[in-house]
């Protein structure tokens, strides 16, 4: 756990750029509206994942999320089949989804926290 807490998701998933015939993103659950990049994506790249593909309209690094469908402002972002937060503005299919266009829904249970 000690390692996990400190290091979770700090590394690169893959060193290369996405593209070619292999899958370039992973959809972790059938209900998800985002996929996780397995390599760096540039604008115009076709991102393939099991069950579909989407054209990137933003560039993003591996491990980051790309919307596979339009997500209107205030809608849930679904990953692992559950909500991991909400969009703060309209997000287009193929757009990078991160802190610039989504936020946490989590309210800290412990008083005195931000």
């Amino acid at each position: 756990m000690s390692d996990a807490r400190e290091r979770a998701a700090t590394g690169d998933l893959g060193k290369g750029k996405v593209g070619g015939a292999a899958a370039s993103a992973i959809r972790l659950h059938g209900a998800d509206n985002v996929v996780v990049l397995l390599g760096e994506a540039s604008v115009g790249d076709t991102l393939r994942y099991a069950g579909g593909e989407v054209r990137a309209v933003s560039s993003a690094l591996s491990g980051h999320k790309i919307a596979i469908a339009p997500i209107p402002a205030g809608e849930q972002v679904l990953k692992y089949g559950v909500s991991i937060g909400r969009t703060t503005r309209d997000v287009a299919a193929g757009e990078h989804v991160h802190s610039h266009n989504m936020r946490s829904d989590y309210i800290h249970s412990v008083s005195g926290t931000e």
Partner: protein
Amino acid sequence: MTRLQGYLRSDGRKGIRNVTLVAYLVECAHHVARKIVDKVDDPDVHLIGFPGCFPNAYAQDMMEALTTHPNVGAVLLVSLGCESFKRSALKRVVEASGRPCDLLVIQEAGGTRSTIEKGIEAVARLKAASEARPVPMAVEELVVGTICGGSDATSGITANPAVGRCFDRLVAAGAACIFEETGELIGCERIMSSRAVTPELAREIEASVVKAERYYRALGFGSFASGNADGGLTTIEEKSMGAYAKSGDSPISGLLKPTNQPPGGGLYLLDIVPDGEPRFGFPNIADNAEIVELIASGCHVTLFTTGRGSIVGSAISPVIKICANPDTYRKLSEDMDVDAGRILEGRASLDEVGEEIFEQVMKVASGARSKSEELGHREFLLTYKTFEPIGPACLPTSAARAHA
């Protein structure tokens, strides 16, 4: 249908190994106990122990649960003599379980060399006395735990969800599965509690995460670091979901604390964060402390997911290593049982790797050695903690049974 074989114990549980334990009851007896195990040099003779001299109810309970674990067939206790551990009480518990048990007290046995010699003879005697013919064992009788350690960006998208698939399969087959570390589940407590089988259990689960958040905060550890955002994680609930994915999709049947045994098949959350104000430091100073707690709650096998490449095993119960990162797998393949990083490279699906992990559990439960087990990893960590007993809402099925 897979046919497992197990060693039947007097409490009705079955073990997938027949281990003889050598247990030191204070650090002062550690060297003697280790020498006994080293000289016997048998892959089924394991060293465990508690280093502290001051009394601690948790340590006593843990040692009782571990020495009567179904994978254990016999026990040699090694005491210095003046430590506060209740050695006679522990010996009575082991004997009452039907296991052969000997106690050596170094201060009475003639010192270091004499005790080592007596210990070697005792282990031979105990091991012979515990020999038993395995009997058929059902998947429903298995208890399987999971933990992640040395995680990286790959853990949450390959190995952890693949273990979740395996857990779903095991739970559907009637096995008990245990996941843990509420400190890593901060942010997904409501997602998690929505899977609880009763509203009362849901409240207990949420309270356990609140406790964990408070505890880690008091120790100065938040949960979301800037490196997480650089890696592509946006929210705390997203990060926690990566670890939480190990639990799969089954309903959550109960909340355990270390040494509580699952009352039947199903998925259980193990709360390893101590109760009360932080007193003894970190809830788990390293991964093996959590593994030992999973084993104390009955786990026959532990599924360990790692991205950066943990190599540990455990005393008592085998550890199966599921490597999340394909680069790490190539570097450390001699330590890894399952290459979940294939998912990243498009060479396997989550379902396929989940199935492979399930098959690996069946093989190891049938007697095949896992990689860490074959390599002789027998790590063990037990330190001070404090827990209050769990409330009746934590195990709804057994509470219902008690009222029936």
